[in-house]
């Protein structure tokens, strides 16, 4: 595969494209007005169902709202929820993973079994179960996705913690009389962080898809919010005649999930070869 050298680092073309796309996504999420100055909720009856054109790059929806503007503004929603959900998932996983990895044998046994039971459920099903209990909405779908991803992370973190804890330098630290907490904070946590970073990047892509799925099912963002999954759901009815209403939000979901995955894998590869 062709590689480009930028600032002393090697990137594949796919990684470069993915990085640029993620950068755009972050800009769109933080300052959507820079990329699309319009109002994503502005209704204009006369412009309903317009196909893509120079005036409306991605066309318009049934209420004449500009789909390009909505996709750009939707990035903040999707990205924020994606980041938040991943943070919840990983945060929970850190607690579970450390308890299992460092605690006494019985605690490890108990935690691991619980994680395994949760792991047996498909993630989206776990998220749906949670929403059934708490009721639909943005907050609960975010927490739901976070909870659903936690078991997967917890397993990886536990094994990482175990591996690090049995390393010789930890043994050395213990011999030197360092306390448990000190060892955990100074040695184990930093060693686990690298792996966590990769997990988070890879998880972000997945979280975006899951959050969009929940919104698509009507369990997350409520219309007319500019959220990709909700836009996809709204456009579904019109797919026979107005393809652009589903195509562009769908493209945004696929592209951001793919970009996050490509970057995550890139980091993972470098970590492995560096180790």
């Amino acid at each position, binding site marked *: 595969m062709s590689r480009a050298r930028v600032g002393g680092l090697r990137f594949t073309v796919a990684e470069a494209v993915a990085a640029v796309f993620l950068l755009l996504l972050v800009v769109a999420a933080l300052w959507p007005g820079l990329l699309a100055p319009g109002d994503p909720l502005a209704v204009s*009856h006369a412009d309903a169902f317009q196909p893509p054109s120079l005036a409306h790059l991605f066309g318009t929806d*049934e*209420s004449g709202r500009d789909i390009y503007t909505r996709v750009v503004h939707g990035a903040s929603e999707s990205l924020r929820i994606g980041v938040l959900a991943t943070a919840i998932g990983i945060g929970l996983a850190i607690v579970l993973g450390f308890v299992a990895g460092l605690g006494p044998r019985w605690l490890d046994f108990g935690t691991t079994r619980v994680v395994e039971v949760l792991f047996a459920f498909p993630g989206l099903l776990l998220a749906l179960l949670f929403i059934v209990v708490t009721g639909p909405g943005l907050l609960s779908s975010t927490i739901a996705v976070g909870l659903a991803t936690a078991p997967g992370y917890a397993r990886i973190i536990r094994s990482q913690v175990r591996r690090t804890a049995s390393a010789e330098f930890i043994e050395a630290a213990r011999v030197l009389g360092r306390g448990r907490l000190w060892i955990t904070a100074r040695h184990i946590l930093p060693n686990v962080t690298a792996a966590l970073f990769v997990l988070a990047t890879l998880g972000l892509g997945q979280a975006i898809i899951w959050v969009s799925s929940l919104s698509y099912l009507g369990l997350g963002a*409520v219309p007319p919010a500019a959220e990709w999954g909700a836009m996809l759901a709204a456009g579904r009815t*019109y797919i*026979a*005649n107005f393809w652009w209403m589903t195509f562009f939000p769908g493209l945004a979901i696929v592209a951001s999930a793919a970009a996050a995955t490509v970057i995550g894998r890139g980091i993972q590869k470098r970590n492995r070869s560096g180790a």
Partner: protein
Amino acid sequence: MPSRRFSRPRAAVVVTAAVALLLAACSPGGGTSGEPSGEPVTGGTLTYASGDAEPSCLDPHVGGNYPQALIATQYLESLVSLDEDGEVIPWLATEWDVSDDGLEWEFTLRDDVTFTDGTPFDAEAVAANIAHVQDPATASSTGYLALAKIKDVVAVDDHLVRLEMSAPDSALLESLSQVWVAMESPKALERSQEENCAAPVGTGPFVVDTWERQDSVTLVRNDDYNSPPADVAEATEGSDLPYLDSIVWRFIPDSASRYAALQSGEVQVIDNAQPDTIRSAESDDAIEELDAPRPGAANRIELNSGKAPFDDERVREAFIRSVNVDDGIQSLFFGTAERSYSPLSSVEPLGLSLPDLFTVDFTVDTDAASDLLDDAGWAERDADGYRVKDGERLSLDFPVSTNQSIPAEQSLFEQIQADAKTAGFEVNLQPLDLSSWYGVLAENDYDLVSAPYTKVGPDVLRILYHSDSITPAPSGYFANLAQVDDAELDDLLTQASATSDADERAALYEQAQQIILEGYYILPLYDQQNHFLRSSTVQGLRAMPTVSTPTFAGAWLAP
């Protein structure tokens, strides 16, 4: 999962296929159907795809909503029907007579009809059916309200039945024509409700055979069928109805899939056709449209006057002045729906339409709305631009039934939300499934709601706007969702439903509608949309002149 491998070439294939499918879906499916052949053909299975919620009970006495009416029309029949001109005609009853004081009705029944379980249709059966609808344990809503004035039913002889009324009811025949009070076998009604819900037994052209929950109901031909309504009997004299062997009644909630199934020939008739597909079907020879606006109330948004902020008429008027629905209806419905300015459907001859009340040259009147809100004490605005009073935001809850409001209507509500925001109203749209939606209404947790209500005749006004209807029916549903509590209106509606004089009745209903419209209790939108699309191979399909449900009694499949 983070550890799963992601195959790039395979993903590319999937994307390409998806795009190809999308493009294929955009090109109209051509048809080669010629002119329909005139002679009915016997036999065959027709597949119908419904977009309405799957009923939880196939007996329309229980609850009583439109999805039940749609399917029950195929296996249940009523005492009377209506012809194309809206005149009452014989069905299971051949003639009827009312006493001068309007308190006693006598119906002569057909003596040659049996239910499909072999039970004869007679006066006792009529009594059992009315008792079943009125029994609180049945949890009837539509039928219960329609028959509320029947005090007692007496079987005079085998085929003569007398209904004794608590008050005169000028709408009785119209009420009895509806499928929600259709006749079921008294023997079948004695079964548990669960059993009867799964397979009600009637006298209709088809019989419920099996019900695969979440999928379909199979209806098979009633070989002994002999009781079509008078107009059908006349038109099809000498034919052995029904022509079809069976109907597979499928539930396909997703409108795009439903339309695709019709285009591919997988199904032959669909309901709840979306406006854009109705338009695109016009250029398709293989697909025909059946437009059957429902009788009763027009589709409208009810403003809950029973609690703040809409207990203040000025706030109601301000809301109605600040939203523009005309442009939205035009663009979202592609010309398939016409704006209504009346509480009643356009098929109701007594409907009063007041366009001037709702539109000033078809634009919103933001100044008037603003003054009204200032007057009502909602003079300040918060940081988000919403009006506030005593620290409280002018916030409106709008639960939307995703089963009953088609996507175009939901989009219209989003546009209303955007308009209302300009005026300073915060509208919280809450898309809900049917049972959660009923739950929210029962809890009085709504300020705006759109609830379709179908009933034959203007008496629907009494059901929807008489203060008695704020009290829930046995099903828990109350029909007066605007919570109009006006003694003068109550009086007009009571008088109108009691008078037998046609002119007086018309005048009373006109005054009643005037009060409803001028009190800004409702924002009328359009007729209850009832568009069906059928494959051009389906012949002889028609909508009942009663509640506009399609009937397959005289339908056949052209080869």
